[in-house]
């Protein structure tokens, strides 16, 4: 809210600090404030909207911060009730806890006084006429919205009631609203006169020719006002003050103050009370407050006297019960102060958090729990970065178009009811769409782009999975990229202490989007045991083209929640054999569709314990071998107990050959190295 510095000064006899200094003080004690010339722009937290969206409210804070005496008084006499030939009623006191109406006869509505117009202008409001300026001034001073009706334009009785569906309301600005059901309105026999707590209407507007006015100072429940604001998307100075909750006791101050000021401005013949409908007056609260507890919470040694003074300046009553207990009487308008912890905050912020001395906590020396999930995440990122990939974060949202582009089932995607835009309508079901786009963007500037992301993906019902994905281009696209990624993922998984991972290209299941996302033949499932943990391979050429790639794109996507279940940090030392290893190569011809991984696995298995390692060193694919492929395995034999003789190695080799032959595969030649 914008505050006029001179207006704030008018509450004090003592000179206030400069606007800049005052702004800093307010910032340090609860209200972030900037000074701009002779005005202050203070942001009032929602919890304080009920008493600080007013010059009086902020002045009270200043008085507490500076320990200045607040100089403010209003007429104490209550207004005499008059006799009127119309009824005023409130249908639901819960929505309108208080309704106060006064009648001012024979007023002169000219231009308002310049002093008031000046202050209004400084506080950001346009002066209009004496009546409007007066009610606005009262609101900016006390925080209580006040409204004036032309009494002679009201037809019959006044009712505070819910709107009827389809009712028409025309605002002061001549804007027409067709109201839905159940918004709170002030209405006469002809319909709505005002939207309760939000906006006055055109029909009973006060103008220069108005003779008699009704001045309303009412209290409306914040839920009711918020409903109107939301439903009509109409936020006003008045609604702002009601929306966070306002205490009905402010009505007293406002109606007294408006009489003080209004007498000389509108020069009414007489002022009478029409009604003050206030069935359940709000009450001050008494809170028992333990000073030891206060000191412990803030970690300061504040005296009883200091504490008492702070409360008094804030308008609270204090009674000292014992040397450690106070009884604090909190005025009803401090709706944010309900419990002892709220009082701790009041003392703390006025005392000043900058005055609190840092004091390290004393606690049991309990070491933090090791979060293995987090450690694995770190290991994985470091691993990929060490191999030259770059980490990214992408938005967690996708569009409807992404669903169809990547072949995702709409039923499985989680949709937002209020997305930022159509582009961000769904929660991402895969990391790949945005990651591939980022690769595409970078490809405009870099020849080699290798990105990865670790993040959550989502699918119905309420599923959330930590996922790892990478996407790479490396033109000119060589067929090696596939194997590079495969090798990368293989090593990554091994780093996680997972030994039974393998790649399955044969029965690769079609998971969501699989058929549109991946190249039908250049992709594999990543498996641990029998569980599918992810996919790797080439992006489908059609999809790559749609995403604007002219080259082949390679990617992987791994369900980390799933994979990390198998991760283990246990590492066991294998003794280093003092005996030399014997290396033999073996070439075998196998059917075209046979999995190389299975051949290697079979060699390893059938050779027994003394086979230390099996490596694929060559795959030969000739036109003659059109239904077959030839491969060469390098097999390492080694014992921990003795030198292996040529005879022993030969026996082991025969076992492997036999296993191959049982599969119907034949040997080509054997080179001994």
């Amino acid at each position, binding site marked *: 809210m914008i505050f006029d510095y001179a207006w704030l000064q008018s509450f004090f006899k003592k000179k206030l600090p400069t606007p800049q200094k005052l702004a800093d003080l307010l910032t340090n004690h609860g209200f972030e404030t900037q000074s701009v010339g002779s005005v202050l722009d203070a942001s009032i937290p929602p919890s304080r909207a009920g008493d600080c969206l007013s010059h009086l409210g902020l002045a009270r804070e200043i008085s507490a911060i500076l320990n200045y005496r607040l100089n403010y008084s209003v007429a104490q006499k209550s207004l005499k009730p008059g006799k009127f030939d119309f009824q005023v009623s409130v249908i639901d006191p819960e929505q309108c806890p208080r309704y106060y109406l006064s009648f001012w006869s024979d007023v002169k509505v000219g231009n308002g006084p310049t002093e008031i117009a000046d202050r209004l202008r400084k506080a950001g409001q346009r002066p209009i006429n004496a009546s409007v300026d007066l009610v606005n001034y009262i609101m900016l001073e006390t925080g209580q919205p006040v409204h004036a009706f032309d009494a002679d334009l009201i037809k019959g009785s006044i009712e505070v009631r819910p709107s009827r569906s389809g009712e028409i309301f025309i605002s002061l600005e001549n804007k027409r609203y067709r109201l839905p059901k159940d918004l709170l309105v002030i209405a006469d026999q002809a319909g709505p006169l005002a939207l309760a707590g939000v906006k006055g209407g055109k029909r009973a507007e006060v103008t220069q020719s108005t003779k008699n006015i009704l001045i309303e100072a009412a209290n409306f429940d914040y839920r009711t006002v918020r409903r109107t604001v939301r439903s009509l998307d109409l936020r006003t100075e008045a609604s702002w003050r009601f929306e966070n909750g306002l205490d009905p006791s402010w009505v007293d101050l406002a109606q007294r103050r408006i009489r003080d000021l209004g007498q000389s401005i509108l020069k009414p013949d007489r002022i009478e009370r029409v009604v003050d409908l206030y069935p359940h007056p709000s009450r001050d609260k008494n809170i028992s407050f333990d000073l030891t507890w206060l000191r412990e919470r803030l970690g300061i040694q504040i005296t009883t006297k200091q504490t008492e003074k702070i409360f008094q300046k804030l308008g609270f009553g204090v009674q000292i019960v014992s040397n450690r207990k106070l009884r604090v009487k909190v005025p009803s308008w401090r709706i944010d102060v309900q419990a002892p912890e709220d009082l701790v905050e009041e003392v703390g*912020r006025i005392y000043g958090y900058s005055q*609190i001395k840092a004091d390290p906590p004393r606690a049991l020396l309990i*070491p*933090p729990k090791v979060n293995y999930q987090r450690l694995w995440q770190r290991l994985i990122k470091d691993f990929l970065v060490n191999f030259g990939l770059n980490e990214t974060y992408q938005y967690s949202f996708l569009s409807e178009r992404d669903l169809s582009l990547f072949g995702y089932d709409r039923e499985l995607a989680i949709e937002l009811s209020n997305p930022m835009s159509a582009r961000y309508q769904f929660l991402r079901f895969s990391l790949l769409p945005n990651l591939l786009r980022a690769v595409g963007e970078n490809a405009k500037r870099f020849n080699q782009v*290798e990105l990865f992301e670790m993040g959550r993906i989502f699918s119905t019902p309420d599923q959330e999975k930590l996922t790892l994905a990478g996407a790479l281009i490396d033109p000119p696209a060589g067929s090696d990229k596939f194997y590079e990624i495969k090798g990368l993922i293989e090593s990554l998984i091994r780093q996680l202490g997972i030994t039974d991972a393998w790649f399955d290209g044969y029965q690769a299941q079609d998971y969501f989007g699989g058929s549109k996302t991946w190249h039908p033949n250049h992709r594999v499932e990543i498996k641990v045991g029998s569980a599918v943990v992810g996919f790797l391979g080439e992006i489908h050429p059609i999809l790559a083209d749609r995403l604007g790639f002219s080259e082949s794109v390679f990617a992987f996507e791994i369900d980390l929640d799933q994979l990390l279940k198998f991760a283990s940090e246990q590492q066991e030392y294998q003794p280093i054999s003092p005996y030399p290893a014997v290396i033999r190569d073996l070439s075998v011809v196998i059917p075209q569709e046979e999995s190389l991984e299975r051949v290697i696995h079979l060699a390893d298995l059938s050779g027994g314990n003394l086979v230390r390692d099996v490596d694929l060193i060559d795959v030969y694919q000739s036109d003659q071998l059109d239904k077959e492929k030839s491969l060469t395995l390098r097999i390492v034999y080694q014992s921990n107990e003795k030198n292996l003789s040529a005879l022993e190695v030969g026996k082991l080799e025969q076992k492997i050959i036999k296993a191959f032959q049982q599969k119907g595969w034949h040997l080509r030649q054997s080179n001994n190295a």
Partner: protein
Amino acid sequence: MDLDQVSKEAQQAINKCRDLSELEETARHYLGKKGVVTTAFSQLTKLSLSQKKSEGKKLNQVQAIIADQVKQKEKDFKENLFQSKSESKIDISRPGKKIKLGHLHPLTKVVREVEDIFQLIGFSVVEGPELETEYYNFDALNIPADHPARDIWDTFWIKKSKPKQKKNLLRTHTSPNQARYLEKNQPPLRIIVPGMCYRHEATDRTHGFQFMQIEGLMVDEQVSLANFKAVVERFSQMFFGPDTEIRIIPDYFPFTEPSVEVSMRNKAGEWLEIMGAGLVHPNVFKAVGYPPYQWQGFAFGVGVERLAMIKYGLDDVRQLYQGDLRLIQQF
């Protein structure tokens, strides 16, 4: 055999050698298993004892001479070789070969650093869901439905597939994990919770609708605001540098009371907000079923982008979600 002749020939042959391999060849010719001198030794058996003695002595001398000459020649060769190797030149001014290097995202670097600092003082790192219930995001944090403060967290709501389904949302902060963790664990406890959060807000240079936050929570029998100040001061000095100055001013959050804002002073002397914090509101303890006022705590929420901006001088948070290599490769 004329041993003098052999010795002379050998000397000539050795002198003629042009490199080490020729020298080896020559040495082998005379001194090898089947070499001239070795063969001569084997012939000695055919001689009489006295001849054996004199010829043998001579042969030994010749063998020693040749060996000595080979050794000398070898030394010469090696010296020359070392000389020429030492004299060879490369262009040491040429730039080193480019090594392919990957880079961690700056947000990851910030989160790791924060995690490491807090783990040093006994905070465990835990994680929670991004897809959150209305209860944990709001109700359990003293923000009931209709509470005006709900407006501060403009929320992305999940479309219900069935009308009766409970309302889910994308968490607007990491604070739901205060309640989640307190429910399942027994104080005293200290945790930090890093994670992605979402708010339905217009974006600008310093705000994104998606951002990363780190929640902190310490609950013990006696925890004060002065304790929090000590922790956050130490954290700031470890994270930003030993001379870092911080400021604590009042703020408002429904789930802390009192609530504060922590700022650090940058080189230009401006205060930059780094976190919101406060003492845990008794209603949060109440929501997770703790007896009122038995436990005390402080909680804080740090904006990771904010820390990254201050630490690295980034000027637009939105850049952090573009995957632009020109940015990432600087880290």
